[in-house]
């Protein structure tokens, strides 16, 4: 019984410790974060974006709500801890006192015999029954003081006390467990229930959850996109796909096919069809047939296409609540699917391992249009402006009428608007387009948010001069981003896109003449720490590979880190140099959410013929890229000969040498017999 009583006070201590260990550091982190300044808001502040309501809900209310909730829990936990401490103190008051002779005599542990005697005498005067008539004092003297004195003066018991903590020597010890008693009563009915409960909740439940999760996620790839979608995209992607046709591929995602088509959807969809008909690229001459053909498609395809057109044309009124939910679902999935589609466009297709340029650009244009809710047709050259009105239409308060007015003032391209000074722009906008001051202010805010990008691209064969055919060429691009308002990572202005969307950029190195993408990479400016670690690692690898000293390496790394912090990102990748010749490459930096900030530049790549000097060291391995197996055979022999003289020069004994050669031969045979065993060490290239 005594044991359980003791346990009842020990269990709270256990709970207290387990609670305190995460709670205390968490509170400190929380307080220090509160003390430091608030995080900058990185979304667009124009009136259109604020009105769209997504930031209000997602950022403002979430932060305030979340913080109060978590603060509340923290405070509650602290209160619980306080109660526990009080409870423990209260209970441990009437606990068994531990016999500690030194404390009783008022001495430090390890006192000498004379000190003990002195202290004993002093206490005797105070408590001895002869001096003190109080019966309690008598008790105390007999129970504690004389016992303590005896324990400490007797040689054996003192030794025992110092060694085992008890004057009688080693005590048998009792094991217990600091858990509430009901948990320990395994017998009886409650024991069975407890057992079932523990097995069910602690063992079976996690396993079931994991199994369900795994069986469900096997349908998805690493990017939460279905395998089926990827195969459809891969199959339908064609080398020359017009931007308007990209849409037809895009809607074939398995995710969209899963959205049910309900019976009452028919009518609103019909209405929607009438509204967006002009955008559907139907042949006007035999409109009847075309319409019939359109409706004959798979109903899910029709629905998705119409919903996306509804987003592009901003015509969302005819949607019923159910359709609106589907509409939001379609938009929510869009960025993820578009990214996969982009990857499918740039995936190596040709024998040289190049992807396709035209569909890649088309995908990004579609992405921009969906995010900004601008019709695809607005991108086409329309009358006055050579590059379409799309870029203007993404700005708040702009519409066709305003554009017409502006066109009369010879404002043709978006770049011209950007290049103006703020005063000029304000004047133009208020005078010509008739905007109010607040509206002009809104437009300024959006323009300040717009990224301005610069690119610095170099291609080289690392550690060599010039580029020869078959080289592994390293692309080394610094992408620098500037915004007028000084932010680096920011959310784009996208009032018509109802979800949180991050800006992403795609760097493409491509040959526009042959429609080949040589290298592509996604760039994001949101996560600075990852970018820093990636850039410093890339630079470090490069410097170490070229044999630089530690000092040089660390210097270069520091420089790169500074650069990343000031708003640049490093893109590094490798590709194999093609056959000899001059190549006029273009490098693109395309944004997936802003219209009109894409950058394009040209890069001349001169690939020379492979020279003998290029293959350093030994053996004349000239022009052996793409060599078949026979070619390989020849080289094998050369290599062996070569190895032999090197070995005989430097190895100690012939025996060893021969054995090595034998082993080597075996390895080669193995290599030939099983070409599928791919060995990956040592070459991290070509993965991009």
């Amino acid at each position, binding site marked *: 019984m005594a044991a359980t009583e003791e346990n009842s006070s020990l269990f709270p201590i256990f709970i207290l*410790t387990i609670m305190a260990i995460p709670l205390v550091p968490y509170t400190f982190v929380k307080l220090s974060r509160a003390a430091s300044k608030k995080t900058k808001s990185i979304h667009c502040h124009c009136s259109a974006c604020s009105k769209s309501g997504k930031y209000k809900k997602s950022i403002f209310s979430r932060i305030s709500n979340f913080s109060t909730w978590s603060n509340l829990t923290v405070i509650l936990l602290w209160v619980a801890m306080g109660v526990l401490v009080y409870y423990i103190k209260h209970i441990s008051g009437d606990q068994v006192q531990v016999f500690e002779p030194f404390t009783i005599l008022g001495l430090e542990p390890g006192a000498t015999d004379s000190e003990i005697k002195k202290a004993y005498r002093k206490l005797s005067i105070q408590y001895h029954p002869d001096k003190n008539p109080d019966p309690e004092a008598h008790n105390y003297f007999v129970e504690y003081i004389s016992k303590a004195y005896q324990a400490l003066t007797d040689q054996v018991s003192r030794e025992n006390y110092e060694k085992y903590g008890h004057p009688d020597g080693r005590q048998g010890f009792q094991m217990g467990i600091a858990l509430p008693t009901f948990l320990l009563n395994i017998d009886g009915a409650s024991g069975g229930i407890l057992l079932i409960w523990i097995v069910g909740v602690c063992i079976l439940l996690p396993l079931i959850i994991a199994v369900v999760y795994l069986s469900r996620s096997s349908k998805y790839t*690493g990017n939460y996109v279905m395998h089926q979608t990827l195969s459809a995209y891969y199959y339908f992607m064609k080398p020359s796909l017009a931007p308007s046709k990209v849409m037809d591929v895009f809607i074939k995602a398995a995710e969209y096919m899963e959205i049910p088509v309900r019976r009452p959807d028919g009518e609103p969809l019909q209405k929607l069809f009438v509204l967006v008909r002009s955008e559907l690229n139907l042949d006007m001459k035999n409109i009847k047939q075309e319409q019939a053909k359109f409706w004959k498609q798979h109903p899910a395809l029709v629905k998705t296409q119409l919903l996306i057109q509804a987003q592009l044309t901003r015509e969302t009124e005819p949607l019923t609540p159910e359709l609106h939910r589907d509409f939001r679902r379609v938009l929510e999935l869009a960025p993820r699917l578009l990214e996969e589609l982009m*990857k499918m466009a740039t995936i*190596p297709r040709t024998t040289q391992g190049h992807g396709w340029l035209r569909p890649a650009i088309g995908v990004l244009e579609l992405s921009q249009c969906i995010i900004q809710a601008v019709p695809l047709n607005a991108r086409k050259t329309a009358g006055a402006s050579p590059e379409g009105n799309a870029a203007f239409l993404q700005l708040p308060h702009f519409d066709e009428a305003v554009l017409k007015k502006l066109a009369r003032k010879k404002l043709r391209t978006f770049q011209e608007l950007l290049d103006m000074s703020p005063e000029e722009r304000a004047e133009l906008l208020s005078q010509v387009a008739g905007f109010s001051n607040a509206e002009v202010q809104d437009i300024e805010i959006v323009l300040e948010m717009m990224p301005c990008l610069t690119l610095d691209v170099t291609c080289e064969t690392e550690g060599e001069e010039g580029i020869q055919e078959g080289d592994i060429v390293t692309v080394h691009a610094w992408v620098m981003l500037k915004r007028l308002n000084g932010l680096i990572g920011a959310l784009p202005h996208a009032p018509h896109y109802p979800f949180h969307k991050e800006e992403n950029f795609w760097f493409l190195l491509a040959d526009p003449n042959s429609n080949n993408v040589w290298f592509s990479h996604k760039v994001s400016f949101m996560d600075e720490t990852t970018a820093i670690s990636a850039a410093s690692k890339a630079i470090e690898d490069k410097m170490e590979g070229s044999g630089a000293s530690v000092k040089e390496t660390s210097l270069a790394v520091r420089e790169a880190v500074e650069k990343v912090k000031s708003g640049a990102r490093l893109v590094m990748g490798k590709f194999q140099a093609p056959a000899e010749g001059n190549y006029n490459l273009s490098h693109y930096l395309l944004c997936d959410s802003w219209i009109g900030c894409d950058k394009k530049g040209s890069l001349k790549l001169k690939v020379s013929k492979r020279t003998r000097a290029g293959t350093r060291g030994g053996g004349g391995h000239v022009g052996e890229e793409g060599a078949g197996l026979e070619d390989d055979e020849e080289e094998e022999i050369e290599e062996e000969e070569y190895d032999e003289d090197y070995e005989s020069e430097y190895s100690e004994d012939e025996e060893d040498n021969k054995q090595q050669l034998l082993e080597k031969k075996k390895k080669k045979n193995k290599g030939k017999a099983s070409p599928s065993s791919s060995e990956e060490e040592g070459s991290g290239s070509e993965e991009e």
Partner: protein
Amino acid sequence: MGGGFRLLHLVRPFLAFLPEVQTADRKIPFREKVIYTVISLFIFLVCSQLPLYGIHSTTGADPFYWMRVILASSRGTVMELGITPIVTSGLVIQLLAGSKIIEVDNSVREDRELLNGAQKLLGILIAVGEAVAYVLSGMYGSVGQLGVGNAILIILQLCFAGIIVICLDELLQKGYGLGSGISLFIATNICETIIWKAFSPTTINSGRGAEFEGAVIALFHLLITRTDKVRALREAFYRQNLPNVTNLLATVLIFLIVIYFQGFRVVLPVRSKNSRGQQGSYPIKLFYTSNMPIILQSALVTNLYFISQLLYRKYGGNFFVNLLGTWKESEYSGQSVPVGGLAYYVTAPSSLADMAANPFHALFYLVFMLTACALFSKTWIEVSGSSARDVAKQLKVRKRIKKQIFLPKFFIFLKKVIMIYLQEQQMVMPGHRDSNLQKELNRYIPTAAAFGGMCIGALTVLADFMGAVGSGTGILLAVTIIYQYFETFEKEKASEMGFFGF
């Protein structure tokens, strides 16, 4: 050779009955790999807490106490055998294959399958054999006490546990998980001990009031209940019979030191000889052989203990047996500890006080650990094919690397497999004649191996002297394994990004 082939072919009829994990037919995304790893870990943990049904007693000296660390086994539970079957069968098969008793052509698919099957079959046989030996030797009470039914039940439990471990290890190795099952289980077992020693709710009352076993909980307990806070602190930090806070801090310190040392390396720049622009670096780490010397050393010592204990029990009076080791039951745990002979001198001193009392013991232990680790490390590079000559060869031997972009299976129907032929890479060091490569590697690798082994040994000794939780060996094993895991983790993540998220 013919005989060898027949030997391997003997396995063939059993292949159908052996449990097998299907190779992943798609590239498993990173987060799924993590989940698979966590699940197998969870199963392992549950198994190593689940008591065996039908046993009579587990008290008395445990002859395998010293081996439990590297075998990830826990006494009296289903995981009594731990990873012993799988490790032993792996070793045996390696030895057989290495000594050409069974001839295996690794390039033939069927051969590889048969070898795998043989390893599994042997593992299961060993599990059965060990389980029978355990029961018959009376570890759970004599067979008469147990009854035949219970004895068979125990054997069955142990066997199934062995099969489960084999399957889990296979699951992790066949591309569903991260790293290897064996090292994961070892590290988990050790980490479990450390966590338990820190937060255990078990209380022990040895006449001075109940005390918590867990060091951190005891700290709180003492601070709250004792009136004299300074003494309470001192007690929490220095108590002798139970894990204390100093032990815990020492463990953390060792963790940090090892991780710091992991970063020490010499980087050799290498570049491809006939494909230009292929350059990279070959890092030679200080801990070139990682935890191998420690594993070998503890394997040696535990075997010594085992033999010595066995001999001591049978022929306690013999002079030579006593020279090998004399054993005594410890007061606290009822555990046999060596108190004399060679076994005593290769055991870590239990505390600093013990060290001061027997300086010769401490010195001998130190010297033994350092030399053993350095020697094992040097031997290991020769055996495992990571010596300078092997590395030079690896870098030089042409490797026709055929990279397959890992497309999911269905793509193979749609399009022929996309392959990128990288050129053969023959790596040389810039600024050196390539014949110098081996020389250059020779400058670093043996030194790194020997010195690294010594460092590992020294760290183990340090951990032992500071009384880190678990043994020094255990902690070193755990840290190095965790660090390896951390590296694979990073690599997996990077490759996930690089491969377009396939």
